[in-house]
């Protein structure tokens, strides 16, 4: 029999439903392994005792009609969890205990899942390497001193190290897909409006989306099916008929037209990534899909536009951290002094930098030159996608311009760090769904991912394409558990 820890989420659900294993059994296995894996620094908060109690509760009165019956899950610490500390990786929320639950996590518990704990992330999800967290760097199980990517770095690391059978993250500019790519896992950012933003610590509200991070495409479809729902509590939640992503998942992509955007062939991209992309095309052709060369002419402008829009929204969203109603407070001589000291001591450098960029681009006299300009460029980027989606069903690109890098390699150069998200950011700006799947290894044996971008609400299409490619790619993640020894 395979090790319990090696079972995918969907297999685990089957085994629990067929009573081959109990919820407590599998919960204990994950807790034991998580306890041995502290070196990776994935957890910010562990709720192991509560998880055991909940698994016993499940086993005593099991409901096997749920989609995640008795499954233990750890989630990114950006989701508000009722009565469980939620920090967003920041000192300013170090002791924040929400009195309410995020809709997407509630959806998980409603389907029978059990919370294992909260996973480390870049502070307020601002980062591409999990190096901005107040709670320290997360180590990738792929190699010592290697970043897991970010901002959902703790989620990616915990998933790849098998400390949770699956997880959810959030993606504002690539924060699910980039770490998934760096750790050889699957990550999907849904269409803007598919998954509720209620109860997610806000970063950039017009871009933020929650999404699944899993070991394979099947699990990804299952998790998406659970978390995607219409929510009146989120004013941008969209009420559409959600397919049964999991049961509808199939490998028939015959006749699908897949676009290859020439602008994604960037200078300095390693030949390994180029080769993987070529291989991806071959696999798709083998599956009966048609490859079409396309152009997304404004691709290069996506990142600079993003670095106006996202910080602008962040500076506004983070104005709420003033030391008054919740979170950290520093003492001050008067109210203004209290605000300024609280925010100075409570936020880390990258968050401060982005608040200041945002404040500047929104300030009087600069609004038109920066913010309005960026919104116009955002329109051009969306128009690019709208146009090509008249000709193709989906787009295939690399997920990232390089594989994972070492801790400290990019921390002194913000722009080079930002360039990591060059292939993922346009998808957020246009509100589209995108999935990253592991596609191979580079010369250091570090994973590389391919991204499939779909039309709005076409999650099923990109999942089906990913499902077909996954079989051909046949990627096996090997980590040899070096951090446990």
């Amino acid at each position, binding site marked *: 029999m395979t090790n319990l820890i090696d079972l995918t989420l969907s297999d685990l659900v089957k085994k629990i439903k067929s009573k081959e294993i109990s919820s407590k059994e599998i919960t204990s296995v994950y807790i034991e392994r998580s306890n041995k894996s502290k070196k990776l620094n994935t957890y910010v908060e562990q709720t192991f005792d509560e998880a055991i109690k909940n698994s016993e509760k499940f086993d005593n009165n099991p409901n096997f009609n749920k989609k995640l019956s008795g499954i233990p899950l750890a989630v990114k610490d950006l989701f508000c969890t009722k009565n469980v500390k939620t920090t967003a990786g920041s000192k300013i929320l170090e*002791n924040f*205990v929400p*009195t*309410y639950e995020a809709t997407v996590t509630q959806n998980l518990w409603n389907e029978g899942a059990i919370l294992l704990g909260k996973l480390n992330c870049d502070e307020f999800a601002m980062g591409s390497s999990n190096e901005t967290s107040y709670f320290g760097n997360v180590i990738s199980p792929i190699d010592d001193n290697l970043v897991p990517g970010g901002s959902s770095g703790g989620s990616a690391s915990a998933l790849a190290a098998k400390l949770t059978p699956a997880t959810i993250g959030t993606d504002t500019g690539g924060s699910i897909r980039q770490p998934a790519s760096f750790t050889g896992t699957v990550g999907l950012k849904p269409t*803007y*409006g598919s998954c509720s933003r209620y109860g997610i610590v806000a970063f950039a509200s*017009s871009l933020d989306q929650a999404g699944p991070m899993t070991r394979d495409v099947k699990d990804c479809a299952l998790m998406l099916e659970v978390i995607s729902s219409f929510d*009146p509590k989120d*004013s*941008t939640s*969209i009420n559409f008929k959600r397919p049964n992503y999991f049961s509808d998942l199939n490998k028939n992509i015959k006749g699908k037209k897949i676009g290859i955007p020439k602008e994604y062939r960037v200078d300095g991209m390693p030949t390994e990534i180029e080769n993987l992309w070529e291989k991806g095309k071959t696999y798709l052709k083998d599956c009966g899909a048609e490859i079409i060369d396309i152009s997304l002419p*404004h691709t*290069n*402008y996506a990142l*600079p536009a993003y*670095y*106006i829009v996202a910080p602008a929204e962040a500076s506004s969203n983070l*104005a709420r951290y*003033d*030391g*008054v*109603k*919740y*979170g*950290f*407070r520093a003492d*001050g*001589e*008067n*109210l203004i*002094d*209290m605000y*300024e000291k609280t*925010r*100075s001591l409570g*936020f880390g450098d990258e968050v*401060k*930098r982005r608040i*200041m*960029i945002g*404040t*500047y681009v929104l*300030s009087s006299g600069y609004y038109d*030159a*920066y913010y*309005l*300009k*960026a*919104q*116009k*460029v*955002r*329109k*051009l980027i*969306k128009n690019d996608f709208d146009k090509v989606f008249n000709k193709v069903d989906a787009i295939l690109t690399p997920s990232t311009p390089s594989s994972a890098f070492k801790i400290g390699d990019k921390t002194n*150069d*913000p*722009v080079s760090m930002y360039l990591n998200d060059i292939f993922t950011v346009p998808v957020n700006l*246009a*509100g589209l769904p995108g999935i990253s799947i592991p596609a191979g290894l580079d010369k250091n044996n570090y994973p590389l991912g391919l991204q499939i971008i779909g039309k709005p609400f076409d999650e099923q299409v990109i999942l089906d394409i990913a499902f077909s490619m996954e079989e051909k790619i046949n990627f096996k993640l090997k980590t040899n558990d070096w951090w446990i020894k």
Partner: protein
Amino acid sequence: MPLINYHMSIDLKTVKHISKLSRISIDDQKAKKLEKDLNAIFKWIEQLNQLNTDKVEPLTSIAETTLRFRKDQIESKNIREDILKNSPKDNKDYFVVPKVVE
């Protein structure tokens, strides 16, 4: 010389002004570091000026739907305790802040 559409740089005075607007106090050393970082970032951002966007409508929201109406009724009742629970200074009735009115 290549044409750089770099219409202004951010000086130390501007950095301090932005920090004031952001309600984040910074010391001189941090301000100097930020001056360097922000200039590098904005220099990179300025490539947007290569694009003519005169006739482009700004994209304000990706969900181009009109906001839904809902009944104007209270959904959350009796949550005073919940609201005050995470208050940084103890008080069961109010949020406590430094004295504002002299």
